[in-house]
């Protein structure tokens, strides 16, 4: 079973609330849900959608066809009717003008009217639409009523529930329900959560105690979420005057020995570049999330892209080690964030978590995060008895004991100038040389600490499709389709991107060609791979129109490549 429901409309019409209610509903019933959003950069109006895939097995990407379209305005019909399957349903309000292409798939219900009659206000139309969708999928209304109570509180919840019940009844009478498999058994309730919530939860679980950021789509929900938890979890969360302040605050906080982070998107990350180098030079652990959106410059603020990979790897003047990690799934976003803080403190380096709008704003069902799998490794030292404390003491692995300022007997001295072991400015060549080697000498151990790519599919594949980060869902979906079609393909997908070494090529199927799949124009991972291993890709599959990959998109390009020998940068 694999059903897609798409709600479309203007900003401000409440598609997100319908979408979230449906998502939570199906999640609670034990279905697997994947939901993604497409919004314009405006507060009211425009054309947006919220699309849910409800399935009997985990799905990590949007499907290419729609089973049920719920257009809250007429533009949604114009824009999306072609996506609806022949047996699908288009649920419209009776008040909407008849569409010239209205056919058997259309079902018009007087939801607005019903909202007015039963609730006394148009705003209840969303509850009505949600209930109607559920009815048309053969689902009961009671769990929705419960959800509405939880969401809107006793007062408004009651009215919403009343409207929902009426709409549900009406829809059931209007048309027989689509056949929907019963949900698979669910041992324990799953979470219904989006990618940036998962990152923020990961930060809390990792013991992050300080967060500063400046609002920027699509990263803002992370600081918003943490700010809401600040009092309960004992955090300091501050909206900064700009991104430069945000990252310098995070570094100042990390200096005092607390776990600290910031989050932004590309334009803001650009402003953080200098301070990233400060963290590198001072060996201060700090975690920065860059939630990618299409660039350059302001670009498409509310859409998605994987265009910042090389940028974040090479950001800032000079050379210093850093980690770049791109969660592939919403579940991974949680565990990876914990790992990011541990890696940052273990190696005393900055860690960049590279998400994107698609991962960050997509919701899915995940198994409840297993807190017993979370270990927090602080790597803080007390000062060694006897000798004076030196912040940058030379050690075999280049990692110097880090103590907390305020410790009696120790001066914790950080310098953005080149410095000696004692953190004071130096000018001589020998110390400079040694400090460069100290810092960059950490890289081999850092590389070894990283995880190899996920590998799935045919071990004797003719083609390896390699992706990274949030592309995983679509890539896995595409490989499954291709394998079903008899293609000999293997998927590889990277989360740990930097430092990058040859392990990504391990167990390479003999003679297999390499196709790199990434959400950008130039093929950045492909270039990195060639730089680090010499292995160049035979083909690229790219997407750079601001929209996420879907399995169908990849399959189509793959078939074109194998059929025609294809061109790079198709």
């Amino acid at each position: 079973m694999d059903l897609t429901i798409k709600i479309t409309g203007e900003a401000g019409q409440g598609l997100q609330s319908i979408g979230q209610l449906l998502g939570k509903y199906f999640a609670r019933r034990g279905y697997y849900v994947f939901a993604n959003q497409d919004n314009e950069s405006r507060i009211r109006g425009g054309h947006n959608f919220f699309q849910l895939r409800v399935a009997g097995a985990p799905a990590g990407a949007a499907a290419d066809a729609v089973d049920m379209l719920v257009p809250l305005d007429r533009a949604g019909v114009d824009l999306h009717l072609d996506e609806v399957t022949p047996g699908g349903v288009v649920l419209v309000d009776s008040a909407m003008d008849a569409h010239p292409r209205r056919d058997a798939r259309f079902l018009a219900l007087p939801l607005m009217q019903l909202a007015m009659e039963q609730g006394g206000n148009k705003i209840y139309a969303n509850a009505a639409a949600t209930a109607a969708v559920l009815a048309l999928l053969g689902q009961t209304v009671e769990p929705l009523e419960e959800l509405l109570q939880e969401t809107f509180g006793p007062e408004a919840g009651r009215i919403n529930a009343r409207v929902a019940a009426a709409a549900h009844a009406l829809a059931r009478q209007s048309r027989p329900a689509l056949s929907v498999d019963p949900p698979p058994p669910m041992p324990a309730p799953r979470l219904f959560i989006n990618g940036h919530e998962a990152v923020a939860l990961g930060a809390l679980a990792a013991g992050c105690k300080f967060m500063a950021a400046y609002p920027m789509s699509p990263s803002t929900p992370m600081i918003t979420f943490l700010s809401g938890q600040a009092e309960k979890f004992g955090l300091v969360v501050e909206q900064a005057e700009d991104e430069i302040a945000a990252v310098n605050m995070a570094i100042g906080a990390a200096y005092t020995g607390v776990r600290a982070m910031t989050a932004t998107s590309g334009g803001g990350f650009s402003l953080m570049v200098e301070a990233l180098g400060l963290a590198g030079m001072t060996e201060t652990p700090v975690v920065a999330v860059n939630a990618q959106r299409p660039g350059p410059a302001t670009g498409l603020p509310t859409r998605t892209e994987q265009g910042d990979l090389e940028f974040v790897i090479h950001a800032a003047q000079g050379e210093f080690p850093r980690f770049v990690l791109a969660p592939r799934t919403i579940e991974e976003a949680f565990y990876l964030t914990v790992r990011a803080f541990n890696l940052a403190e273990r190696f005393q380096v900055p860690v960049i978590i590279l998400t994107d709008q698609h991962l960050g704003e997509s919701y899915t069902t995940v198994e409840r995060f297993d807190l017993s799998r979370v270990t927090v490794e602080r790597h803080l030292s007390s000062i060694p008895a006897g000798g004076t404390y030196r912040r940058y003491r030379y050690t075999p692995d280049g990692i110097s004991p880090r103590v907390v300022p305020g410790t009696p007997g120790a001066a914790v001295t950080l310098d953005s100038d080149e410095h000696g072991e004692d953190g004071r400015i130096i000018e001589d060549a020998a110390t400079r040389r040694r400090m460069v080697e100290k810092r960059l000498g950490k890289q081999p151990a850092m590389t070894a600490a990283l995880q190899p790519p996920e590998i799935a599919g045919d071990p004797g594949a003719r083609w390896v499709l390699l992706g990274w980060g949030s592309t995983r869902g679509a890539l896995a979906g595409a490989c499954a389709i291709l394998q079903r079609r008899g293609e000999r393909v293997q998927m590889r997908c990277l989360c740990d991107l930097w430092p990058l070494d040859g392990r990504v090529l391990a167990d390479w199927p003999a003679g297999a060609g390499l196709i790199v799949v990434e959400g950008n124009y130039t093929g950045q991972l492909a270039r990195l791979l060639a730089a680090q291993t010499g292995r160049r890709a035979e083909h690229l599959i790219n997407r750079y129109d601001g929209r996420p990959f879907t399995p169908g998109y990849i399959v189509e390009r793959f078939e074109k490549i194998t059929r025609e020998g294809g061109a790079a940068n198709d």
Partner: protein
Amino acid sequence: MTERFMTARQTAWCPGCGNFSILRALQQALESTDLQPHQVLLVSGIGQAAKLPQYTNCNYFNGLHGRALPAATAAKACNHELTVIVTTGDGDCYGEGGNHLLHAIRRNPDITVFVHDNQIYGLTKGQASPTSDLGMRTKLQAGGVYNEPLNPLALAVALDVSFAARGFAGDVEHLAEIMRQAIAHRGFSLVDILQPCVSFNKVNTFDWYRRRVYRLEETGYDPADRMAAFQKSLEWGERIPTGVIFRQERPVFEDHFAALRQAPLVARQLPAAAELDALLDSFC
């Protein structure tokens, strides 16, 4: 000079520079407290002024040009038991770092900022700074400075600062006393310090300042009145007031965070699994 806060390290300053007096005054101010070096955190940016922490035994965070204030604000919020002092220059604080100054004053963290205001960019060899007087000639401003100097004290008063003062490197006793008050004051304290740069500023010399400065305390001036403070902050030229220009109590940044009421953040335990568990429930 006493030794509690001081290293034997040689400075990288020019002989005769006003920075030496500022360092001396800071020593005196700190000596007058019962602080130990490990309880003091000096935060600086980049510039001649910003090298000061190097010559002390205190903790220091010598960060980026212009970016001392956000680092200091956050460090104070994470460990409010530290005495946090920013040493910065007129370029560092009013040029590159101008935006952070505006917003640090708004936040009002309990930190103290000493601006070594030599009205010039010293470390980069003598370009005009935001406070350079009109007409001053430099290699880069060969025709003379034409942009209106920034008045840091007027700016601070306009932003409703908690504590604003002016000191003079040529009057170490007075400066040390102002510094002492600034450190003791709870809230954001800005001290703009007239600091002769003997290498590049040939206009605003020790002598030039000495002929102009006077001590506000000796005039019966009341630093509690904001309008008077604004008026006083505009005084520049023949007579230059030194001392506390404006002082008021205002809510302090750190006090807004429940987390800080018990102990510094660094002393806090990890989140209890129970709290996290409850939070996870809200996603079901």
